[in-house]
């Protein structure tokens, strides 16, 4: 209880500071500046003009989509002051499950997609209940879910990739077509100018934005992130709200899992290693505070684009791996430092 009033004063101080500062000083303005900075880098180091081709931007948006969906799912949890480390593993689990249902058992996409979402939701429900109801630190609770879901993915797939080559009992292989669900997700519309994966990402952003901005669930999450105790005493069903945030994140991880499986045309139990850190970095670089209570989906979208474009620019210039990692590290730290100035 003693720490909470301090957090409250800090928060109101930050708010009044924002109200006084110009539009550029707002978190959104700063996140946008970071994106513009990266785009300018791209225009300078354009890889023999590759950066100015439309296809490059279409591919960037597609490549950033899986991370972006995870980051969108993660944002409500981080705003409520929690964290979810399990998204990469849940992605692998749903990728394996959806590949098994769609490829091996030849189930319809109308059945596969909802069932995969259910798998993700179940993982989220488990970490949510352990975190909110049993009051285990979210870091620990989702860390165990990360290990558990990875194990489940390996168990379900038998340690092998679930691909269109299916082993017969006698050791030979039979081959099946890539299922329509995967074909549809890894497809392009509007004359090949927009990936379906990007559309799915956009829908995820819009849905998350509506829920966070227009629904009382979103307001409660901000309140919990700001001061959980006070929120509880004002009659908000804190356990329900927090649990739902983890269920939401689990379902988004499942969507990302289906997209990943569709793009690889197989379910890989090793997929998604390290994706949770990428998603957290995207949320944080947008300006959402890991302490909770501040941030938003719009900021996360800017963070996703910033890191997505940074990756692409390093890739078209064929920067060696070591330089890539160093540059990414430096740019993330600079961006986060820029964000932090708003507190003073």
């Amino acid at each position, binding site marked *: 209880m003693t720490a909470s009033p301090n957090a409250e004063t800090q928060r109101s101080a930050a708010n009044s500071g924002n109200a006084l500062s110009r539009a550029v000083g707002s978190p959104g303005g700063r996140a946008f500046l970071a994106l513009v900075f990266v785009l300018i880098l791209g225009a300078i180091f354009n890889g023999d003009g590759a950066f100015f081709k439309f296809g490059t931007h279409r*591919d960037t948006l597609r490549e950033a989509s899986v991370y972006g969906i995870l980051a969108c799912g993660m944002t409500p949890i981080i705003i409520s002051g929690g964290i979810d480390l399990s998204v990469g593993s849940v992605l692998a689990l749903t990728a394996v499950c959806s590949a098994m249902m769609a490829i091996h058992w030849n189930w319809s996409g109308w059945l596969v997609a909802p069932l995969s979402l259910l798998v993700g939701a179940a993982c989220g429900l488990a970490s949510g209940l352990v975190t909110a109801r049993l009051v285990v630190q979210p870091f620990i609770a989702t860390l165990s879910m990360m290990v558990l879901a990875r194990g489940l993915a390996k168990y379900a797939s038998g340690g092998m990739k679930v691909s269109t080559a299916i082993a017969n009992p006698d050791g030979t292989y039979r081959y099946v077509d890539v299922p329509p669900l995967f074909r549809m997700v890894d497809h392009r519309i509007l004359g090949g100018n927009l990936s379906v994966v990007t559309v799915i990402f956009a829908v995820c952003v819009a849905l998350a934005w509506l829920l966070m901005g227009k629904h009382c669930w979103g307001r409660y999450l901000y309140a919990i992130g700001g001061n959980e105790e006070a929120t509880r005493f004002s009659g908000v069903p804190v356990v329900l709200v927090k649990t739902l945030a983890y269920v939401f994140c689990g379902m988004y991880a499942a969507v990302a899992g289906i997209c990943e499986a569709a*793009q*690889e045309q197989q379910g890989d139990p090793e997929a998604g290693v390290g994706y949770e850190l990428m998603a957290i970095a995207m949320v944080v670089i947008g300006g959402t505070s890991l302490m909770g209570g501040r941030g938003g989906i719009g900021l996360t979208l800017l963070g996703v684009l910033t890191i997505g474009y940074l990756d692409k620019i390093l890739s078209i210039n064929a920067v060696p791996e070591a330089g890539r990692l160093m540059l990414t590290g430096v740019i993330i730290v600079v961006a986060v430092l820029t964000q932090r100035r708003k507190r003073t």
Partner: protein
Amino acid sequence: MFGNFSLNRSNGRSTVPQVSKPAVSPISKSASRTTTADSQVWKPALQQILILIALAPAILFLTGCNKSNNTAQAPAAGSPQSAAAPAPSPGQQFVIGMSQCNLGEPWRVQMNADIKAAADKHPELKVIFKNAANDTLQQRAQVEEFVSAKVNLIIISPKEAQPLTEPVAEAIQAGIPVIVLDRKLLGTNYTCFIGADNKKIGKAAGEWIVKTLGGKGNVVELMGLQTSTPGQDRHSGFAEAIAGTDIKVIFSADMQWLEPNARQEMESALSRFDHIDLVYAHNDDGAHGAYLAAQAAGRDKQMKFVGIDALPQEGVAYVRQGILSATFQYPTGGAQAIDTALKVLHGEQVPKEITLGTRLFTKDNVDQGGEAVGN
């Protein structure tokens, strides 16, 4: 339901201890009864118990998972955990202990499957499979367990050289022959090393590419992790083979053996270069990712894709489906390990080192099981 939960929780936070808590295990109930005055006293203890309860299934499941993995690989091996000392009666039954450094990679799953398939042909062999789950110390413990269980022979595919050299030397000292698979140990204190040469494979791939392209063309190289020896060797062997020809590597990137990364790098290469003749990827996953990128760009027919590893359900399947033009096998050595083990157990001489050759799989020879090249 959730409303009730939150109600209970807020009651629990008040100074009155809340004894009747639903959905909590008997342990925590008794914990709450023993403390009387303040909920804050038992709360940390309760929390710790709950953390343990939350973690327990994960831990239990993982150990259970390893077990079931092992038995799936080796139903003949019986319970892999109870490596009881067998009666070492030569001529009747031999027990072989196999320590695999990790079963996370399909290639290593295949290695165990190869060993099992080869061992199943010899009823006198019984193989106990253990999976070190990428943990060096666990693998060390497994070797020591095999020694104290007095198995007749140990096969090890070590995670790393330095920490496992000593335990293997101790097994040799205890009179148990050790066959080392895939990765080398320091020194020569083992019975036989069986492994493939990535540099030779890279060279064979390079030579095939030179021949196929007629010594001229633009190649994209998607490299495996360049801080790993296989990645470096597959690159240097290839570079050696194309040196002096008109084959140019116009774009190369480290895709770290990962398919999504390969697809992203390939998309960059496609948007940068209008003319690409061939993609050489250091593994079949990478070649498949590159194929998907080219297919999405409508350019998959303009270029060839070459990979390495040739696992039955991956690279060989891709060749059969017409996705890859060629793949070069990185053999697991499982069958050779059992052959060598039998020789050792029957007292025959075996070479200190066996280098496995590679096999080339193309559309023309895939039904005949590929052909040996570059040896």
